Every structure is written in structure tokens, then in C-alpha cells.
């Protein structure tokens, strides 16, 4: 980064770079956590504001991605800490997110639906590990749980996914 800019400007540029690099995936992560697009958009904005506040103290003990994911997950948890949230409809059938840019194969839709329907503790592990391609250690850091818990949850989640996919396998093949 150029030294012609003030430290403040550099910090903002750094934040912009983080938003460009991770904004979309953090927004999707928040959505998959909260299952509400409007809340997810609020959460991702909060995440970056918090990240900006903490940028100076970020010591690089984890990757920037892990660090941001952790802030995002904590922000989502904060949103959910209000018990009213538990009574917001999580099952509504109307899709509240924009349609995919390209048409999605039915089998891919099916996998997505199955992953999205996993219980939260498994879903977050699966998403961070397989989608965000984090290591067990990184997932553990983001979720603030032990590595072995992550491993256990992933094993359990794989079992659940396999059962669900087998159930729909033949229909997917047909389609």
C-alpha cells in the first residue's frame, strides 16, 4: 500500500479491499446463519464496521478471512441473542433472496436445500469447512469451539447429508 496516504486513508482502503474480497461470501454466510436476507445485510455491514474498529489490533494470528468470519458469526449470534428472533418465521416458503444469476441444476438446488436445512451447529461447520475451505483449526477459531468438536460435527453432518442425498438421489438422476 502506498505511503502517500494518511494512516486513516490506508485503513479505509484496506477495509474496502476486504469488502471487495470477502463481502459477498460474508453476506452469504450471514444469510445462511440467519436465514433472513435483510438481517444478513445488516449483519454484514456491522461486521465490516466492527472489523474497521479492530483493524489496528488485528495481529494476524489467524488469516483475515478467519478473523472476519469470526466477527460475522459473532455478529449473527448477537442478532439472535434477542429471544424475539426465535419467533421470526424461519420456515416461510417464499424465497427472500434474489434469484441466482445463472439457472441452477436441480441436483445442485437439492444439495443446497439439504445443506440449508441442516441443524445450525452442523450447518456452520459444513459451510466453513467445505464452502469456505477452512481448516479444522480455522473453523474451530471462528465458532469458538474445539477442533475435535468441529471434527465430530462434520462427521455427523456428513452422515445426515448422505442420508438426505440418498433419499433424493434417484429423483435427481432422473432430472
Amino acid at each position, binding site marked *: 500500500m502506498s505511503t502517500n496516504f494518511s494512516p486513516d486513508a490506508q485503513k*479505509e482502503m484496506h477495509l474496502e479491499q476486504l469488502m471487495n474480497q470477502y463481502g459477498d461470501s460474508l*453476506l452469504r454466510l450471514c444469510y445462511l446463519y440467519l436465514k433472513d436476507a435483510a438481517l444478513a445485510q445488516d449483519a454484514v455491514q456491522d461486521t465490516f464496521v466492527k472489523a474497521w474498529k479492530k483493524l489496528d489490533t488485528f495481529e494476524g494470528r489467524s488469516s483475515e478471512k478467519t478473523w472476519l468470519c469470526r466477527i460475522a458469526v459473532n455478529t449473527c449470534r448477537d442478532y439472535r441473542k434477542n429471544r*424475539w428472533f426465535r*419467533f*421470526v418465521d424461519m420456515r416461510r416458503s417464499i424465497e427472500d433472496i*434474489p434469484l441466482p444469476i445463472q439457472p441452477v441444476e436441480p441436483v445442485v438446488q437439492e444439495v443446497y436445500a439439504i445443506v440449508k436445512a441442516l441443524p445450525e451447529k452442523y450447518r456452520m461447520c459444513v459451510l466453513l469447512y467445505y464452502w469456505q475451505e477452512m481448516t479444522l483449526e480455522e473453523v474451530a477459531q471462528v465458532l469458538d469451539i474445539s477442533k475435535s468438536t468441529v471434527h465430530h460435527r462434520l462427521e455427523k453432518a456428513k452422515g445426515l447429508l448422505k442420508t438426505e442425498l440418498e*433419499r433424493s*438421489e434417484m429423483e435427481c438422476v432422473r432430472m
Partner: protein
Amino acid sequence: MREDVIKIAVEQNLSGLYMTKEQKTNVLCLIQEEKTTSGLRFRFSAVLVAVLLLILLAAGAVAAVLLGGKDFTKEVVAPMAQKTESEAFTAEEVGEILRLAEENGITVPQYVREHWARWGSEYKEELMRALVKTELGFYPASWSLEDQNWYNQMLVECGLSDSVSNLVPGENDFTEEKVLYMANSLFREKFGLDGDLTDETKYRRFLTFGIDTTRPGITFKQWCVEYEDLKNGAQYAFIMLDNGLVTRVSRYQPDAENPYISALTEEEVVASFRQYFGDSVLGWNMEVLEQFYHSFAMCDHTKQAADPGVRHVAQTRYLMPGGHYTYMTEEEAVALARKACKADESLQPYVIYFGDDPNNMHWKISFWEGTEKNKQFRLYAQIDGKTGETEYAGIYVGPWYEPLVNASQHAAIAEDKTIRVYEKPAMWRSPLFSDAYWDALEALDYNAETREQRIEEWSREYGEHTNLWPYAHQAVHWWWDMNPKFDVHNYWVPGIPVEGEHISMEEAKQIALNRFMEEAPALFTQEELARLTVLPPSFDYHVIDGEVAAHVWYFDLQIEFDDGRYSDSLFHIDAHTGEILMEDISNAAGNG
């Protein structure tokens, strides 16, 4: 299962969800606001040090009395939190708080210490909550209503919350005892909940009362009672508005075959809302409509409401203008709509504001004449909530509920299409397929009401995999549960083979095998061929350009390789003629 499938599935399905330029700009604006306040903080820093010292000295003195988690938070931590604008305590402040907590004999949870060690600073609210929990219990909703209210007020005083959402019931509100009695009676009656519900070894109880301040414009006070069965994890929820309208009675049991069960039917929800807010849905304000949307979405849909209009109304989410969801005033929107559909001043506007996404909000303004009780709708316009662009403008033609629904639904209403989940599948009894076919499916008595029972029976009788079920059973399951989409030019529908009309499965199989064996020796070893498996075939109607082009036996011949992977060779056999319509013979290995 290939693990990159998950990555692909998420990326593709959520490709329409991305952080817009405006959202990024919004973050940068928020930061500018933060900078202003942090500047103030800097100027106060010298004073702050002195104040902190005084507080810490005072706290030290208090330590001799040994405060509990609640009083410690109230008397030591909250005053510290009020001294700075930041949402977080610095590492030094956290260190000092933890030290003082220890002196008071408060056992700070290990996760707080670990978090502090790893991340340094700590969000004020998180730390205060953790400390209060040491005295009042882990779950805030299990605290007394007075404690919830106290905690909420403290957050407001510390600048960590905008308003108090958790309230203490007043003279005109239901009492806690009465609400618990009502909830418990319903849980016992509807779900057979038995025994002593106050037995903390069996149930964890949550009780809240207040206003959902996370949604702009909400004024209803609401009671929530929830029990968690500690044995099987089932959660029982009861929600009631402060006027006595029960909006939800449900059970959620994650491991059950049918995890979510509502004790309220569509008809009951509709009847209750009409009882409390008037028969005419058009007379309900947006807060009532929004509440109705949530209650309806969570009720039991197996028996649909007699009035199809209310189901249309329940498909739209109504948001009260306010907060960052609103980009223009109602007056501005009405002016734009009036101009768009050339509505003169004598016509009165009926306004709704709806949408789930802050970036995709809409105003719908319908213009009427007549009396308040007998509105004659004439014109309507839908305006983009953000840009003010006119999305639709037209002459009113439609049923009573048309002013309440998204204008893009208007076409669906006009064609009398109903929402699939409550109705028969699209194209049900289409003349494209024979009456005998439809009669055979209807004879299985499979529909929204019976499906759970049928799936259970058939899984028991024919196996878990639907491809092992008889063809009529597979077909009816597909129509009702696979949410089929019908491309204009090309699609497949599960069919039923008919003896005498179609070649048998065995004949078709032989045709596929004969063809396969012509090519196979060049592609596979003898050992591999010995592991050939013919998967249960499907039987489909292939529709091309609106006509049934063929009845097809669809075979998958699978060979397992030594490394556990498989190759698939596919055949479409014309069930009338035995002709091979498509073949794909391959030794390419996949994961099956």
C-alpha cells in the same frame, strides 16, 4: 458425495446475493460517523483515566462487600461502559474487570477468559451478559421479567441498545400467572405435555414480554412462553399479543420425522385475526398484516382456509416504513403513484409497503372511491421503494385482496393460479396424459393431507428409496413433492407402464444389455463386467414442444471399479417400439 458439490451448491444458489456497491458505501459512511465519536473519545481520554481510577478505587472498596454478578455489573461494569462510546472494552479494561470480578468471588466463565486472551478487547454487552448470567442463569429469557427489563434498561443507559424491548406487565396487561396458565393448558391439550412443567430437571422454561424493537414500526406487546424438553430437545412455543390474540402454539422437535407441528390451523388463524381486527382484511393496518403474515406462515397448512384470498394476502410480507427500509415518505410515494396512473385528487389512496430486502422494497398504492366501508378500487400503481420508478400502473381488475398483494402476483391471480404448496400440483390432470394415468394416481389417495402417512406406509412396504416403489407410487410422489417445473419445450414426467401397451421391463432391459455388450468388451475387463449392476429403471413420459413424444424405459447400467468408483452407461428405450432412443456407453469413472 463429492465435497466440492457443497461449494458449488452454495455459490450457485446464492449467486444473486452479493454485497452491493451501496452497501459498501454505507459501511464507509458508518465509519465516518464512528470517527466523529472516536475523536470525542480521544479528547476525553485524559479525563477518562482519572474517572476510571476513581471507579476502580470505588469498586475496590465495594469488593469487600462481595457483590453478585448482577450487582457487580450494575455498580462496577455498567458505569465503566457508560464512559466511552465504543461498543467494546479495551483489553486493559477487560483485564481489570475480570480481576475485580474474581475479588468478588464471581466465577467468570472460561470462554470469556479464553476470548479475552485470544482477541484482546471484549464487546461490552457480551461481557456484561456473561457476568449477569453467573447470578441469574445462562438463558436471559429464563430470568424473571423484572430482571430482563432491568438488564434491557441498563443496555439503553450504556448506549448499547436503542430502546427497551423487554417490559414488565402493567395494570392493564395480562398477569404472568394467567399467561402461563393459558400456555400450559394449550401445551397439555394440543401436544399432550404432561407432568410438572415447573420441574427444572425435565423442562427449561422461557418467558418474555415486550415489543420486538428489531422491526421498525412494531407497537404490539407480545408474550412468549417456551418450554424445552430436556430429554428429547423438543421446544414448545406459545405466542400471544397483549390483546389476547394467540398467534402461535407449536412444537419443534429437530429429530422427529415431522419436526415442526403447529396446533393452529389456517382457518383458526384467519378467524382469530378477524375476531380481533375486524372481518375486512382491507381494514387491517400494516402492523396487523405483518403479524398475520408471520402467524399464517407458521400455522398448520394441511387444511387450507376456506377463503383463498387470505392465502394470497399471507404471501406478501408487509413492513412498516421506518429505519433503513424506507427511502421515501408515504406522501412522496402516493404522489408518484397518482401521477403514474393519472389518479385525480378525488380518489383516496390505500397504501401498503412491502418487501423482504431493504434494497428491494415497494410501495403499492391502490386508489379508491366510495365509503370507508365500501371501497371501490379504481386504479393502482407499484413504485420501487428505493428509486421511485413505476413498476406497474393499471386499472384495477381483481378480487377483494388485490390491493394487498404484490402487483407481480396480479397476473397469477388473474389466471386463477394458486400457490402450489396448498393446492394440487401444476398440470394436475393435464390432458397430455391419459385419464387412466390420472385415475391410477388419484386412486392412491396421496395429497397434502395424506402424504406423510403414505410415505411412511410405502417406505415400510417398498423400502426407503422411492425408485423401488411401484411406478404409480413413484409418480404421485413426484407430482406432489418434487415441485416439478415444466419447461415449454422439453420435460420428463414419471409414467406408469401398461401391460399390452408397452414392452415389459425385462424386454427393455434385454435390449439395453444386448447393445451394451456389443461395446463393453473394448471398454471393460472381464472382472469389471462381472460387477455389472442394472439399477432399477425409471419409466417416463417425454414431452417435447407440448406433445408426449415417447414413453421411455430409462436404464442405468453401472460397473464398479476396484477403487470403489463407478461408471454409468445410460439407455432410453422406446416403450412402444423397443427402439433405442439414446445411449451413452461409458467407462468414465465417477463417484456414483
